[in-house]
């Protein structure tokens, strides 16, 4: 027997020949016969066994055991040879596969016993079935739960079966077994009454569903179905990848496909196709992988030709895509699909067609020669000798830049957008600036107007309180009597009969105040004739808040003092003194209304002086001035005036009634009220 010679570790060809002496090779698994002879032998044996009925069962099992022992001993040393043949088997299908299948049959018989001894230590994680359950509910909501259970049960046995046999069988056998499982399930669907209501399309989906879940799980297990142990898939992957790297210089010209690398759309499509190809490795079950291939091919089709693309266009473009993509684990993936995909899907349908194309592309790449690229042999060799890192056509460059260019394009688009935005922003900013400018102008105008309108009157107020304070605290202020400042103060009110005189006197008083508060410089400016309210107003406006507060305080504090103040002041004391006293005692409440008009009347004389401009201005000024006056004057002067002069003033007012009417009420309303109480309080 052949096996007895095995220890020599050398196998002569004669040793491998069939024992019967026919030209075929024998196999230890077939007791040294070739497949044909072995089968005949077996058939004879079976017949004999049948004839001898069951009496000889025991010796037979003995025999089997011994056979197995032999086989196991020979198996290891034989495995290499076996693998070689496995590879050859693809080309020499008929004969070899015949043998193999017998061989496999034998082995299955054998190991059914041995696997019984193995504990079922393997457990499928429940997550698989939970996921399945959920998926089932989503995909087949209308199906009865029985089918769900059925499918899960099938997947369970399917997975266990594959795992069990993966350790023992070689890949081809395993793939056949898987295919048989698919068929088993299909048959089950045909026969079982649960599926009676399920139409054929749904059955297709169901078998896909089962395959998906079983293979998705199996795919994750190392070396079971994906690049299984015992195959050189991984080595081939590496070889393929290197080969593709070497061929990176191959471009569309070599493949004669009509692509325009400068066309952005074309690049985009190729890019898409490539990403689909790359994604194939990530997909876990063959259906998903096929879907990827299909999508890739569709991109390629669109890439290849605008018209309905033919295979003439498809294949070269697909080859180019594969070359440029250099997908990882390409061979493993292809083998995985061919072995474990439901054969019917693979043989038929669009997915099958495109997958076939992909296989063609791969085989073309593997066998690429100068001829197949229709180029000079020398040139080809030259290219091939070139280090992969250098090699690269313009296409490769264009493609390798593909991502970069895309990014660049995106970036530039973004930049353009930003540019527009910034322009708009600038425009708006300018608008805004203009608006701001005009607003500023307007404000400035208004302010100027206001400034023009709001003049001197305020001044006196401040001055007055200060005056009082200072005056009270220290006499010095009065020293600066010259106060030429021409304020439209109510001094006139004091002395009605001699208005002019009063004014002068008052002016003097005011003059003091002004000088004290601000600066002496202003006082000179304020000439009687030239004292423009504007000038004084500007000065007044700014400090006003500052001054006002102290003023108020003072006014409150020194309610009484002001009255006395004038007394203190040397020049004025004479005149004021008398009046003040008399006034104070009088009823402030009644007096208020009249005094306002009084002032106005007093203004009249000023008006011509101050407002040389226009009447309106005058009016406005008057109002302000009145207000101011009212405030300031209230503490002292208002009080003085009311009663005694009231009647007199009224008479006077009668002349200037128009002006007064408009201004007086507001002034009276606004100002007097807060101040009055003080006044009233003071006197009392």
């Amino acid at each position, binding site marked *: 027997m052949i096996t007895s010679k095995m220890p020599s570790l050398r196998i002569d060809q004669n040793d491998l020949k069939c024992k019967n002496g026919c030209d075929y090779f024998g196999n230890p698994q077939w007791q040294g016969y070739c497949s044909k002879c072995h089968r005949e032998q077996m058939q004879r044996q079976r017949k004999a066994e049948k004839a001898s009925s069951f009496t000889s069962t025991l010796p037979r099992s003995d025999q089997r055991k011994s056979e197995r022992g032999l086989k196991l001993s020979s198996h290891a040393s034989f495995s290499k040879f076996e693998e070689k043949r496995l590879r050859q088997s693809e080309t020499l299908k008929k004969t070899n596969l*015949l043998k193999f299948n017998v061989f496999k049959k034998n082995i299955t018989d054998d190991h059914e016993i041995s696997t019984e001894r193995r504990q079922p230590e393997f457990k499928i994680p429940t997550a698989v079935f939970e996921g399945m359950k959920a998926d089932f509910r989503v995909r087949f909501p209308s199906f009865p739960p029985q089918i769900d259970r059925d499918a899960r049960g099938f997947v369970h046995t399917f997975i266990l079966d594959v795992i069990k046999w993966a350790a023992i069988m070689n890949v081809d056998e395993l793939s056949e077994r898987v295919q048989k499982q698919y068929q088993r399930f299909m048959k089950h669907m045909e026969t079982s009454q649960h599926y009676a209501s399920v139409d054929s399309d749904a059955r297709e989906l169901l078998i896909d569903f089962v395959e998906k879940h079983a293979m998705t799980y199996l795919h994750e297990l190392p070396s079971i179905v994906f690049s299984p142990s015992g195959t050189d898939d991984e080595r081939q992957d590496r070889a393929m990848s290197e080969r593709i790297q070497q061929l990176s210089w191959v471009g569309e010209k070599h493949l004669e496909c009509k692509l325009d690398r400068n066309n952005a759309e074309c690049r985009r499509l190729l890019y898409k196709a490539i990403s689909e190809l790359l994604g194939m490795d990530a997909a876990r079950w063959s259906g998903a992988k096929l879907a990827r291939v299909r999508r890739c091919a569709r991109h390629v089709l669109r890439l290849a030709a605008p018209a309905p*693309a033919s295979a003439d266009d498809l294949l070269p473009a697909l080859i180019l895509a594969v070359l440029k993509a250099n997908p990882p684990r390409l061979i493993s993936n292809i083998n995985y699909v061919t072995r474990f995909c439901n054969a019917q899907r693979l043989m038929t349908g669009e997915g099958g*067609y495109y997958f076939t194309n992909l296989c063609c592309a791969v085989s073309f790449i593997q066998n690429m020669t100068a001829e197949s690229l229709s180029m000079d042999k020398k040139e080809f060799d030259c290219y091939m000798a070139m280090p992969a890192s250098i090699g690269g056509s313009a296409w490769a460059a264009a493609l390798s830049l593909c991502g970069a260019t895309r990014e660049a394009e995106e970036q530039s688009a973004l930049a353009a957008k930003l540019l527009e935005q910034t322009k708009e922003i600038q425009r708006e900013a300018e608008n805004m600036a203009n608006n701001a400018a005009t607003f500023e102008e307007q404000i400035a105008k208004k302010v100027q107007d206001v400034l023009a309108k709001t003049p001197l009157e305020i001044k006196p107020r401040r001055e007055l309180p200060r005056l009082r304070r200072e005056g009270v605290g220290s006499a010095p202020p009065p020293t600066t009597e010259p106060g030429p400042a021409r304020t439209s103060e109510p001094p006139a009110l004091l002395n009605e009969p001699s208005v002019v005189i009063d004014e002068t006197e008052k002016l003097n008083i005011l003059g003091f105040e002004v000088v004290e508060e601000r600066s002496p410089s202003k006082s000179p400016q304020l000439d009687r004739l030239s004292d423009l309210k504007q000038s004084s107003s500007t000065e007044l406006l700014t400090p006003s808040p500052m001054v006002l507060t102290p003023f108020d305080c003072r006014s409150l504090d020194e309610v009484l003092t002001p009255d006395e103040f004038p007394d203190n002041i040397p020049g004025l004391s004479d005149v004021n003194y008398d009046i003040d006293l008399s006034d104070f005692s009088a009823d402030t409440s009644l007096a208020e209304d009249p005094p306002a008009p009084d002032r106005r009347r007093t203004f009249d004389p000023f008006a011509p002086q101050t407002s040389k401009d226009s009447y309106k201005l005058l009016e406005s000024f008057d109002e302000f001035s009145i207000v101011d006056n009212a405030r300031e004057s209230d503490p002292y002067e208002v009080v003085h005036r009311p009663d005694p002069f009231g009647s007199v003033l009224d008479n006077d007012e009668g002349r200037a009634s128009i002006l007064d009417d408009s201004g007086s009420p507001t002034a009276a309303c606004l100002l007097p009220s807060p101040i009055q109480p003080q006044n009233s309080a003071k006197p009392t």
Partner: protein
Amino acid sequence: MKVIEAKIVVLGSQGVGKTSLVVRYIGKMFSKHVSPTIGASFFTCNISVENARVKLQVWDTAGQERFRSMAPMYYRNANAALLVFDITSMQSFTAIKGWVKELQSNVPEAMVLSVVGNKSDLESLRAVPYNEATQYAATIGAAYCETSALHDQGIEKVFKNTAISLLQLSSSNLVSSLRSYDSTEEKIPTASTTNDRATHTAKVELPAWSIDSIAHGEPQKNMCC
């Protein structure tokens, strides 16, 4: 009603008009049977013949000489082949002979062969005599048609003939990879024209994957490329 599913592969040298033939046929069938998204390289269509329905999957092949060696992948498991040549080119006709030899040696199962002489509109430039082509077709047991993709002549006949032959082939039960079955009652054939791709209903087990058939010496179709 009987339903047959078959795969047809279109073979021929480059430039003989395989694609235009197919495109022309698709264009005609477009509204009825062909899903438009699929390119001309692959499509499915249904043809009703007598009292049966034939589902055809047409696989176009790349005609370039450089891809010649890849052809086996395409015609593997094919049930029919359209051998297209250009009547103005003798070379393409001789190429057909090469294809036939290859098919005969590589495809174990019976196939329906149709020889198609395309570009019949270029009668004045004819290089392949009609008689010669017919005779050759007869010797290989194939039907011979002349078509013009340009004028859309005879193309439908080619497919129809193929369908009829497939029907006969399937009834002979010689071919295992040709799937035929009786459509189930609820599936009315007229309705199924709408969904071309709903294939393989209630299918028969594929003998190619049955261990038994292999053990008995029947040719095995290896799925590997």
